[in-house]
């Protein structure tokens, strides 16, 4: 059943980019003993997991590194995905694009998303406690405990802004300083976040509905007749709106943006008899 029509909305990639963007402009400043700022440092950030051979070829291409690692730096990765039943929406609701995507009255639509929480683990590696605290102290005030960004998850066609809250769950400090002097001190700040994400199914296309037909029954338990109402757009060949079907061009030639009128045709049926 799953996979009959492959689809990929790149939502995971977008969520990773959103999360990375929250922390990609962190600076720390260092001062001299007199309190003068002598360095302003931008902290590099990267998504942690990567293909090993690419890492070696990129980070140590000569195989003879001149530094062990450069600090400070931030790394993050997805460590958890779990369903969020408290954010469940009515499944059959549809979101429809606001634009005619190919000029032929064709629109995109997608059903309600499935709510999932994505866990992100953000790690900050610094050489000193103070460098780490300078970074963490710039992060904490933004999360109360969530920070919400507005995102166009499905592109501009849908003209739909979605709020994506990211919640700071916990902060831990891993300071490995208790060892003999030949062991290096490793100082890592670990921040766990939960991003309240939505996942959409396949985006399908459908044409604009131009004709509606409504049948009203006074009594559905007996053959007592009904009222049948058909509404369709009306447009003369001169581009003027009309409610006269005889003057209108075929409805297939009428587009969403035309200045059309409405042709309403109602018929009544009484126990098999019809009157217009």
């Amino acid at each position: 059943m799953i996979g009959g029509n492959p689809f990929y909305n790149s939502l995971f990639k977008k969520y990773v980019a959103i999360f990375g963007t929250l922390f990609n402009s962190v600076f720390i400043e260092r001062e001299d003993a007199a309190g003068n700022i002598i360095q302003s440092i931008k902290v590099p950030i990267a998504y942690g997991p990567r293909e090993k051979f690419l890492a070696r070829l990129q980070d140590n291409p000569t195989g003879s590194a001149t530094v062990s690692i450069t600090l400070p730096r931030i790394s993050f990765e997805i460590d958890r995905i779990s369903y969020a039943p408290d954010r469940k929406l009515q499944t059959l609701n549809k979101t429809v694009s606001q634009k005619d995507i190919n000029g032929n009255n064709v629109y995109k639509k997608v059903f309600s998303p499935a709510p999932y929480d994505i866990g992100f683990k953000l790690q900050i590696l610094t050489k000193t406690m103070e460098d780490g605290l300078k970074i963490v102290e710039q992060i904490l005030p933004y999360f109360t405990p969530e920070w919400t960004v507005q995102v166009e998850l499905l592109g501009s066609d849908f003209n739909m802004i979605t709020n994506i809250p990211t919640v700071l769950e916990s902060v831990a400090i891993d300071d490995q300083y208790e060892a003999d002097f030949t062991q290096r001190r490793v100082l890592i700040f670990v921040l766990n976040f939960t991003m309240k994400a939505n996942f959409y199914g396949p985006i399908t296309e459908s044409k604009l509905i131009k004709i509606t037909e409504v049948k009203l029954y006074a009594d559905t338990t007996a053959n007592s007749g009904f009222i049948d109402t058909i509404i369709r757009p009306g447009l003369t060949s001169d581009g003027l709106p009309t409610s006269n079907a005889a003057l209108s061009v075929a409805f297939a030639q009428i587009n969403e943006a035309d200045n059309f009128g409405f042709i309403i045709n109602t018929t009544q049926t009484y126990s098999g008899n019809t009157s217009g």
Partner: protein
Amino acid sequence: MASNFYFNNFNSKGEQGLIQDLIVESIKMYGIDLYYLPREIINLSSEFREQQTSQYNQAVSTVMYIKSVDGFDGEGEFLSSFGVEVREEITFSVANFTFNNDVGSLIRRDRPLESDLIWFPLNKAIFQIKYVNVRPVFYQMGALQFYDVTCELFEYSNEIFNTGIAAIDTVYNAFATTTTPYHLMSEEGVLLSTEDGFELFEEEYDIVNQPDAMNTTFTDISANFIDFSREDPFSESNARIA
């Protein structure tokens, strides 16, 4: 019972001097010339008892023996969540006399100090001294003749290099992620800043010297779908106007 007077030379200065000369001569024959970089702490954090910034302004040539003859020790090269880390260790032996003569006479060092650096010419890399064993041989003839210096590949954190040795300064300052080269300055050389005191720097500033940094990548990708019309909660656009 006292030790035998005729065989106990532990207090013999002549014997001690002979062994010292032999060690100095041996290290000169089998050792390697390298640079010793003393650390200068710019600012010491009293709360956390650590240095905030360091700089290295001198490089003193001396000779040391490579004790790790089989190659680098340590955990080697591995991939962590922070990228490729190289944890290589090396142990040098340096004669007390040589160190005092070459380094101690120029800078204030009685012995090699932990956190000072050693530039190793074979792979043109800097190693940081982690531990100095001042008694690698236990009072040979009643004296200590050399130190064992255990070092590991340098963990760079925007330290400032101004040693005058191009092979060191150029290579290591290039790792910096500081905004200094991109600061906007007046004609008089005064740094420009905003009313709030934030320094101004060129828009094209980016971390270009670290190939695995993705700061700009995230900005470029997310520019297509993040709505930045709402500023961050601490911007002035959110300030309540009375």
